[in-house]
């Protein structure tokens, strides 16, 4: 019987790390630039959940983690903690982005058109190679810069869409100060925009499947390049510092009386993420709809409509960490449990 066996020990830990490295075979890994171009959706998910827009670091993280996307996002989050915030960029208007794909399921015809762009939505998931139809991608699709207003703007012009009151003034940044309940919408939106894709999907799915009343219609779903601008520190002018890949989604929910003036209007929800990930953006817009338009939902107490549940359970870095912490030794606490059980058993048998 060895006392040391139940303790970890530095050597064992180091050996475990070496074994992991051996398993992912760094010497055989693909060049970083190829990974970015051939696995763009992996990188986009890492960027979104890691809440740090860096292709270079996303690819490094993907390699380090052996392809585990949540682990990879974790690398980015950890790196964020060492970075000082340089400033706050100007807000982005989704109408202004350079569109790569944009659809609306609410309207057949929309200003700017339905632009399918690159998507795997229409691919039949068969392993056998399907021969390309030999068709050409038009020059317009390859070169033109497309911008279009939201497909919901027509409804807005006709005063049919509810506008939530902005009671916040300045948006919260949860990475600087995590708010207490009642949670400001900006905080919830930020937590959701960096939430774990699968968790977002599952929570949103509860709402759309029956535990809620949200069967939304996608008003405008778009991916594209958004310009990031800063105020120049010396000239005070607006300067563009670069472009980022983004996904936006506006969904339309049911109508009800607007508390402001008693008129009937449509509710809507908004979703956004870094990179191209439509499932995330749609899920987020449904959660936003459920949480912030509770009057429009059958069950305000449902999971997806509960801001306390969403804000505290949707972050993958947190839920993964805590789930895995159960692997840490708990023998002191478990032994204490057994002592209490012993006492209770003898007390109950008296």
């Amino acid at each position, binding site marked *: *019987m060895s*006392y*040391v066996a*139940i*303790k*970890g*020990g*530095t050597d*064992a*830990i180091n050996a475990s790390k070496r074994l992991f490295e051996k398993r992912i075979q760094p010497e055989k890994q693909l060049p970083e630039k190829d990974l970015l171009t051939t696995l763009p959706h992996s990188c986009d998910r890492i960027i979104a959940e890691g809440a740090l827009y860096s292709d270079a670091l996303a690819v490094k993280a993907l390699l380090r983690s052996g392809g585990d996307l949540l682990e990879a996002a*974790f*690398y980015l*989050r*950890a*790196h*964020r*903690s*060492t*970075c*000082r*915030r340089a400033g706050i960029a100007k807000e982005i208007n989704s109408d202004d982005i350079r569109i790569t794909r944009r659809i609306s399921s609410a309207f057949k015809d929309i200003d700017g058109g339905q632009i399918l762009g690159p998507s795997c939505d229409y691919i039949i998931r068969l392993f056998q190679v399907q021969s390309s139809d030999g068709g050409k991608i038009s020059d317009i699709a390859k070169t033109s810069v497309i911008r279009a207003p939201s497909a919901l703007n027509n409804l807005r012009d006709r005063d049919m869409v509810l506008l939530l009151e902005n009671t916040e003034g300045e948006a919260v940044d*949860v*990475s*600087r*100060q*995590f708010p*207490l*309940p*009642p949670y400001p919408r900006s905080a919830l939106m930020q937590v959701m925009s960096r939430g774990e894709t699968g968790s977002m999907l599952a929570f949103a799915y509860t709402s759309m499947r029956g535990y809620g009343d949200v069967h939304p219609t996608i008003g405008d779903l778009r991916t594209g390049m958004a310009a990031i601008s800063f105020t120049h520190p010396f000239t005070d002018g607006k300067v563009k510092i670069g472009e980022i890949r983004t996904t936006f989604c506006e969904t339309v929910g049911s109508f009800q009386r607007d508390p402001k003036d008693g008129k009937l209007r449509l509710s809507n929800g908004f979703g956004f993420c870094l990179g191209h990930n439509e499932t995330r953006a749609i899920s987020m817009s449904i959660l936003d709809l459920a949480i912030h338009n509770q009057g429009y939902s059958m069950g305000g107490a449902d999971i997806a409509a509960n801001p*306390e549940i969403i804000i*505290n359970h949707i972050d993958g*870095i*947190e839920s*993964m*960490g*805590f*789930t*895995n*912490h159960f692997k*840490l*030794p*708990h*023998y*002191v*606490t478990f*032994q*204490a*449990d*057994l*002592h*209490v059980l012993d*006492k*209770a058993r003898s*007390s*109950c048998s*008296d």
Partner: protein
Amino acid sequence: MIKRVFAFIDEDAKKEIRRNLLKAVAIPGYIVPFSSREMPVARGWGTGGLQISLSLLQEDDCIKVTDQGCDGSVNAVNIRDFITSVSGVKATVNTRDATIIQTRHRIPEHPLTEDQILVFQVPYPEVLTMVEPDMAKQKQIHADSDYSKLWVLLYEDTSQYGDSRISNRYPVEINSHYMMDPSPIPKYDIARLNNSPALQLFGAGREKRLYAIPPYTRVTPLKFNDRPFIVEDFKGKSCKRCGAEGIFLDEIHTTGSVHYFCSDTEFCDNKLKEAKDAIER
């Protein structure tokens, strides 16, 4: 591209943690929200304690990291290596030599001094989680100092099982005001929180909360006046390795028998060494 920062976290984040630590000490037992940066170790693995340690560190510190009483435990090793690699400070397993001690689930056996700071890793900072999950309501309960739900739980347990079923994370009252979660230390360690010469800080990274017990502060377990606070009992048992008695022991179950060893391995090693030195003298 990647600039090295002393003790990993950027300066503004350290400032926020430091500000909240000062508040935590000024309001003993009150849980202060903080923004809680992500660490390169996973949430739930001591990131709250780690952020506190990193915000405290200066060049001439000597850090000890221990997990369930053992400095050789996987996570303790990892955290200690990380801290020393980003700060260059000395590390020790010896409780007496440490200026900062980061711990999970135990308080070292060797008595602490005024020159030391004990940093606890905390999974659930909120003592009320077991009776009230809603954060807004929890805040209200603390504001009203109305801990009746905890008392009811204690009463129900006592009437059904003879005592509270809470084996660790036993609720404590700080300076006759706030009820506080002392982190998952065993009941044996609860009494040792009371009137400690060392400053005791608590960090919950995932839950984004930190709190403190200043030195020389009254800490009492939640208990009815006419009921004794019963801690883990090791009467008549001693460490099989060093022979120590009257301390917290690990129970090792093997086929047909139970063996006892010091939970605090540094304490055990020191006792053995002292015995060996005495023989050599």
